[in-house]
């Protein structure tokens, strides 16, 4: 399935040094391997668009069949996917490690809430700042603010490499944690938080108001159904933009800087600008995910400790998505999000008892953390290309068997 998205014909021209053995790149396979794969898949040229269309049709039809709680689980996965796509560009394509993703998620959430109108649920708290922009514009604003903030981090992100950057970005998470508690007029404070405005576009509200107004094929469309489509659209746009960047000039520049700085600068790639740029883009994605998250939660509440909605644990969960999916692979990031965020929600929906296997404190969240912790270790040890590489290999095997069958 993952093959369906990752490799269009002609996309195999990655950086010059990344050979077919470089499993860390999804789109970086150059030369013979890609050519061979293209031959293998030539018989399936019709299969690929067909599979994409089928997947989209299924995704569009799901709200007609699934209950609201399952839809909300799916929406949570989409939030993860958007954030993970941004992070995989940074880590996989540009070779920069960031633990600050949760901070930009938080900034995105706060920006959306502050820019959008105050829903007025807590009128007694008059000191809350609210700019009253249309929510759709506030969403865009949140992305822009996060991207600019990411750009403002350029003195660090442009100069500091790899692991040093990981620890440097850890600083952002702690800073966000502190500011979240201090700037009560923006965040609502840790005690009660504040409510974000419902997402709406040209007067159409993605919320529960008067669900009887919108009935599709006998299914009343409430908030869960409406948000599904909004989030799906945002995810698809994010996906396509990232794919365009990876296949185009920026992606080649990132991979060149990642693989060989000296070569990249000789080829005319400005190192600092390229690194700072990908960091800003990654931050923008995180901001979008954060804005989606706060709409999904229906409340903005800063964390009370380092572990929380926007804590280190979230940064690590996003890292896990990206690693398990396969570093640098955009479809991989989506699959990683499905595993890390999807598993947690599915377990929460299916497990009714308080603890799994009768072990005290063995919650769905804990089991998910064990699974992705183990998945990270297994992926690094045995399959550095992650789910994306497994998917590629499966489709290649599938293609070769269908080829033989002819």
């Amino acid at each position, binding site marked *: 399935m993952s093959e369906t998205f990752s490799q269009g014909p002609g996309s195999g021209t990655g950086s010059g040094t990344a050979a077919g053995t470089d499993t*860390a790149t999804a789109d970086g396979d150059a030369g013979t391997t890609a050519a061979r794969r293209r031959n293998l898949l030539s018989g399936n040229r019709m299969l690929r668009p067909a599979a994409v269309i089928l997947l989209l049709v299924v995704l569009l039809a799901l709200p007609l069949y699934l209950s609201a709680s399952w839809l909300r689980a799916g929406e949570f996965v989409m939030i993860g996917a958007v954030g993970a796509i941004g992070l995989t560009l940074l*880590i996989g394509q540009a070779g920069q490690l960031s633990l600050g993703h949760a901070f930009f998620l938080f900034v995105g959430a706060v920006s959306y809430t502050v820019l959008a109108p105050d829903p007025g649920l807590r009128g007694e708290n008059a000191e809350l700042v609210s700019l009253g922009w249309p929510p759709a514009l506030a969403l865009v604003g949140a992305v822009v603010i996060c991207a600019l903030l990411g750009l403002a981090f350029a003195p*660090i992100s442009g100069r500091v490499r790899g692991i040093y950057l990981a620890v440097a970005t850890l600083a952002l998470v702690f*800073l966000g944690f502190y500011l979240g508690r201090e700037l009560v007029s923006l965040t609502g404070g840790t005690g009660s938080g504040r409510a974000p405005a419902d997402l709406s576009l040209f007067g159409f509200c993605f919320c529960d108001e008067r669900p009887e107004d919108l009935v599709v094929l006998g299914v009343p469309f409430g908030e869960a159904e409406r948000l599904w489509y909004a989030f799906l659209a945002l995810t698809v746009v994010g996906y396509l933009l990232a794919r365009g960047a990876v296949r185009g000039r920026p992606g080649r520049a990132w991979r060149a800087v990642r693989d060989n700085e*000296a070569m990249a600068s000789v080829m005319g790639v400005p190192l600092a600008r390229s690194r700072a740029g990908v960091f800003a883009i990654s931050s923008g994605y995180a901001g979008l995910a954060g804005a989606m998250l706060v709409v999904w939660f229906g409340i903005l509440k800063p964390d009370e400790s380092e572990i929380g909605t926007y804590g*280190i644990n979230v940064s690590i969960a996003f890292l896990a998505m990206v690693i398990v999916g396969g570093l640098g692979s955009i479809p991989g990031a989506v699959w990683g999000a499905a595993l890390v965020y999807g598993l947690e929600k599915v377990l929460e929906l299916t497990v009714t008892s308080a603890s799994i296997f009768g072990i005290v404190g063995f919650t769905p969240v804990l089991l998910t*953390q064990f699974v992705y912790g183990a998945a990270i270790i297994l992926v690094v040890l045995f399959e550095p290309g992650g789910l994306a590489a497994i998917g590629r290999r499966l489709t290649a095997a599938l293609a070769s068997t269908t080829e033989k069958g002819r």
Partner: protein
Amino acid sequence: MTEFLQLTVSGLGKGAVYALLALGFVIIFKATDVVNFAHGSLVLLGGYVVIATKDILGYAGAAAVGIAAAGLGALLVERLLISQSKLADPISLVLLTIGVDVIITEEIIRRLGVTAPFLGGPLEGAPLRLGNIVVFRPQLIALIVGVVLITAFFLAFRYTGWGVAMRAQAENREATALMGIRSSWVTGSAWLVAGLLAGVAVLFIATQDFSGAGLGRGTHAIALAAFPAAIIGGLDSTGGAVLGGVIVGLTEAYTAGYISFDFSESAIYLVMLLVLVARPVGLFGTRELSRV
């Protein structure tokens, strides 16, 4: 002035503990090129073993077993995971340690449940008074133990065969192997030593006077502060790690005293950012040069 002295003493005590942790990072980084994000979980592991064995062995026995457990845990991570993936790039290995960290930390937190037990033991007691200055015992003992251990480490690093092998391997791995030094022995012992230091550190961290909180997620977060310490000093400088630890400890104490307690946690990271802006590889880190 009294307050300043008071904060300095307290900051030095904290700094000694951060220095122990940061030294562990640096030893591991020098020997295996891995930045060990699982360090916080090793700290928790040591602390948990102390809690679990305290009633049977008494404090001193439990502390010894806890320190050994943290060291052994580190050794196992190196032997079972890191040494099995020599071909992986450093970033992948960092990610691997994050996976290890998640699993160990979550399991220990689950076992602890809602309790956050203090490891105090004989370390805690009535604070000492030197004139107007109050010295909390864990901080004073941490300072003494820190100075002793760090001195011992540097002597060993400088004069023993082990130290020579460590430094040789950090300089040039292939040449060291050709000289007949077993690489696995060097990397394994590096992780072991780092784990032992983490096991010592937790005895001080999870006390009333040091952090005000028992063993739990907070301990893990405090152990993370050793990261800025190591980065400030430079990831491949052992001396830098000690200085970084002291800088972090003092920064935390001064900001908590003069500005606000909430700010102190962010302040150490801000100091690290300032250092990184001026020197992207830390104060004493080696600049990577690329030859074309």
